[in-house]
């Protein structure tokens, strides 16, 4: 009976060998995949097992961590001034994942990033508790507060950029929310989140980056830049060929101006000052759809922007002639994010050079060593320096004695453009009030701002953009200029 016994011994050996091979397959080959599987609760437990690093503005943390009692998560994320900073930080919830900076910089904040490998290894030997690193933002607390105060109860968004570097100085969106209310994983947190999701004002929508609006008359600066760049006009004070009334191409519809304003053959400077639809509509039509798209591309339209938080793409679409003429004055299917219009203003203020917008200035290891410092990066050359200065002169006239007088700051040169974007079927909804501007001091321009207020007053086109949005832009610019002194 020994021969079959030996065979059975081999069979048993094969059984054990199969188990050993399977074990190696599971615990060596597939270990990483299983360990980071989306259903693996250990990932969440580990994430909240120690204090998360902070997001820092002006040298002060705007986030924090508190210890919780219930459940297997030890720490919970809290925000010092949640609604003010939520459009920047996003949320980080035990039950509902995370978003924006909290999500994108998770590796640094949890301390798991490969960039922190050396640091982690070191603290393993010194026996120090694992800690997350910090993310230092480019934001300016005073500008952010001014933007929020200015928006107040109204729905809208503000984006402020440093034109010379592309650093984001303010990023406000109202109504906002406090991410702290659903940072845990209790029923209360889940209810609070449900309530936010159900709110018809959509407080969790980041209007500054993720909502596209028709830019209205503020887009006329882009049309003007395209005209100068393409040599359609040269002298901003020379008369243009602009009949009044001017009929939209291929139609019998005259393009209306807001009220009785001097638009017939008006110069570029004058047309922008009073915001002539007929002049800029014809300009866009003269340039054609292709050239307009080329110019908007240079300003960063038609693709998503990563700050690193993703911003929706602003669209200047391929279109037929009458639609293209309307798009040239910021209507029709022309849609932009507030960030995009701030980029337009900043490119003009920076003598034509468009910088890549960014909001992470530094990443710090837990021991506060800098492991990353942002380098300003040129995104594109939107227009020549000479032409940029011409557009600047036009925009400064708008603020000096045009539609944007409410953005004036004593002792500071300000250029701007108002806009009131109509939307809804047959202009049935309340228009959006827009204002884009920049401030200029002896050292160039420290700030460019775009403001959009959703529930603008519908009475008269440019007056409301100037009346509603311009004061907010002025306060934000003043906050930045003051903090630089």
């Amino acid at each position, binding site marked *: *009976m*020994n*021969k*079959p*016994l*030996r*065979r*059975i*011994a081999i*069979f*048993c*050996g094969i*059984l*054990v060998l*199969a*188990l*050993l091979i*399977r*074990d*190696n397959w*599971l*615990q*060596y080959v*597939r*270990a*990483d*995949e*299983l*360990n980071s*599987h989306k*259903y*693996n*609760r*250990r990932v969440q*437990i580990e994430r909240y097992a120690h204090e998360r690093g902070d997001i820092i503005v002006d040298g002060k943390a705007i986030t924090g961590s508190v210890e919780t009692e219930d459940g*297997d998560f030890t720490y919970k994320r809290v925000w010092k001034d949640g609604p003010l900073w939520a459009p920047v930080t996003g949320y980080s919830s035990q039950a509902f994942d995370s978003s924006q900076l909290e999500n994108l910089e998770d590796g640094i904040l949890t301390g798991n990033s490969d960039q922190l490998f050396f640091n982690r290894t070191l603290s393993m030997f010194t026996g120090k508790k694992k800690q997350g690193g910090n993310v230092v933002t480019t934001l300016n607390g005073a500008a952010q507060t001014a933007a929020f105060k200015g928006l107040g109860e109204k729905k809208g968004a503000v984006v402020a950029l440093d034109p010379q570097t592309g650093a984001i100085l303010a990023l406000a969106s109202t109504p906002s929310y406090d991410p702290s209310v659903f940072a845990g994983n209790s029923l209360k947190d889940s209810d609070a989140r449900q309530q936010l999701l159900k709110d018809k004002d959509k407080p969790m929508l980041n209007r500054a980056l993720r909502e596209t609006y028709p830019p209205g008359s503020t887009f006329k600066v882009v049309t003007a830049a395209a005209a100068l760049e393409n040599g359609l006009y040269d002298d901003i004070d020379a008369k243009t060929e602009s009949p009044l009334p001017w009929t939209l191409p291929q139609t019998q519809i005259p393009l209306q101006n807001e009220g009785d304003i001097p638009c017939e053959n008006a110069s570029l400077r004058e047309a922008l000052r009073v915001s002539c639809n007929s002049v800029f509509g014809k300009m866009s039509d003269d340039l054609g759809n292709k050239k307009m798209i080329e110019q908007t591309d240079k300003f960063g339209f038609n693709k998503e922007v990563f700050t690193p938080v993703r911003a929706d793409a602003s669209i200047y679409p391929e279109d037929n002639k009458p639609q293209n003429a309307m798009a040239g004055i910021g209507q029709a299917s022309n849609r932009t994010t507030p960030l995009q219009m701030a980029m337009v203003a900043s490119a003009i203020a920076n003598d034509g050079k468009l910088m890549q917008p960014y909001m992470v200035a530094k990443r710090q290891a837990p021991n506060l060593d800098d492991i990353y410092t942002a380098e300003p990066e040129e995104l594109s050359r939107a227009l020549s320096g000479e032409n940029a200065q011409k557009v600047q002169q036009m925009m400064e006239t708008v603020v000096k004695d045009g539609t944007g007088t409410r953005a004036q700051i004593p002792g500071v040169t300000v250029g701007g453009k108002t806009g009131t974007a109509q939307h809804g079927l047959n202009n049935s909804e309340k228009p959006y009030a827009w204002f884009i501007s920049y401030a200029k001091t002896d050292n160039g321009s420290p700030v460019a701002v775009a403001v959009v207020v959703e529930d603008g007053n519908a009475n008269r086109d440019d007056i409301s953009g100037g009346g509603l949005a311009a004061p907010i832009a002025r306060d934000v610019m003043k906050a930045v200029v003051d903090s630089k002194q």
Partner: protein
Amino acid sequence: MSVVTNTTTIGAIDAPSRRNTELALVIFAIAISVFAYANVGLALNGELPSGMLGYGAGLALLGGVAHLAVRRFAKYADPLLLPLAVLLNGLGLAIIWRLDQSERFQSLATFAPAASKQLLFSAIGVGTLVAVLAILKDHRILQRYTYISMLVALFLLILPMFFPSVNGAKIWIKIPGVGTLQPGEFAKIIIAVFFAGYLMVKRDALALASRRFMGLYLPRGRDLGPILMVWAFSILILVFETDLGSSLLFFGMFVVMLYVATERTSWIVFGLLMSAIGAVGVASFEPHVQQRVTAWLDPFAGWGEQAASEQMAKSLMAFGSGGTLGTGLGQGHSDLIGFAANSDFILATVGEELGLAGMMGVLLVYGLIVERGVRTALAARDPFGKLLAIGLSGSFAIQVFVVAGGVMGLIPLTGMTMPFLAAGGSSVLANWALIAILIRISDTARRPAPAPAPSTDAEMTQVVRP
């Protein structure tokens, strides 16, 4: 010069008893378990656990008593079987105690600490070992109870049918005041006794009285009877008690023993064919089995919908999280698997907290037990002993494969327990008894033949050296 030092188990002349080797290994096994226990305490509370002295003393007592019993009643037994069993039992106790400390478990309404109960059952298990060694002086006595053991095994297997099912399988019986019992665990041993006794008598008829057909030896119908019966029986267990594990175990054990008894490959072919037919047949209408198979094919697909597949997925994630070296005892989250984490899924904790290295170690310990069992079968001098030893060690191997393969997703999960490691009184008791019988057979096998009577001729031919 004339002393032959024979270190194999088959040695007949002056075989060393190896009892001191066994003692050293038992002490080593206990030391590992106590270190594991200390490790858990240090990892969870930052201090040595208060029960450590008691646990160490208890385990040392159990190991010592078992060792002394072997020394006294089975002097020439295989020296590895006992230490390996003590190691697994001790390690199991440490891991069960570690799972008892889980806050996630303690918040469950049904929570009851299992470690103290397991220690009690381990003591009873060692008591069983001592009793078996003391009472069963020769394993051949069991031969007399061939048909009685068949009746007892049948009774034990049918019994749970009259009790309510627990978690989808009817394999428990509830005795008021004592608790729940899994008679299937004991039936495993008793049925091996029956098979060994039956096959020893019938082996020639099964092996020789057959016709050759297409290269295979086809058995006669009347010899085919018992194998068909066992096949039908294991299917019945599967259908009525929805116990996949046991039916696979009994059938596999029977095929192995039949093959060894008859030395005919054709029996294996028949066995595999019939188990395939049976498995496919039952799987086509039994929802419990189908659920297990779908959970095995894609454990992550049924997440949140199907309890079986979620358990599987959680087990796989526990293994994955352990990685090569593991998180360290007490520092994993294998308790996420839920109520079965200390019984069916205890290997997931080994995998997560001791890692690939620890898992391979544990699997090799099981492999060693099986290997010593097969070696005992090879060394045994009587066919009954050979068959019984191979039946017991074969069933042990199949059980380890079925459980470990199940929790690692190699084969569908069947819901048996890992011998010695898992929490469960019946399992610990039955496996100690199994080890006791193997020790008894190995003792008989390795015991040196009685010295021949002194012969006067021997005196004459002796070589005298200067």
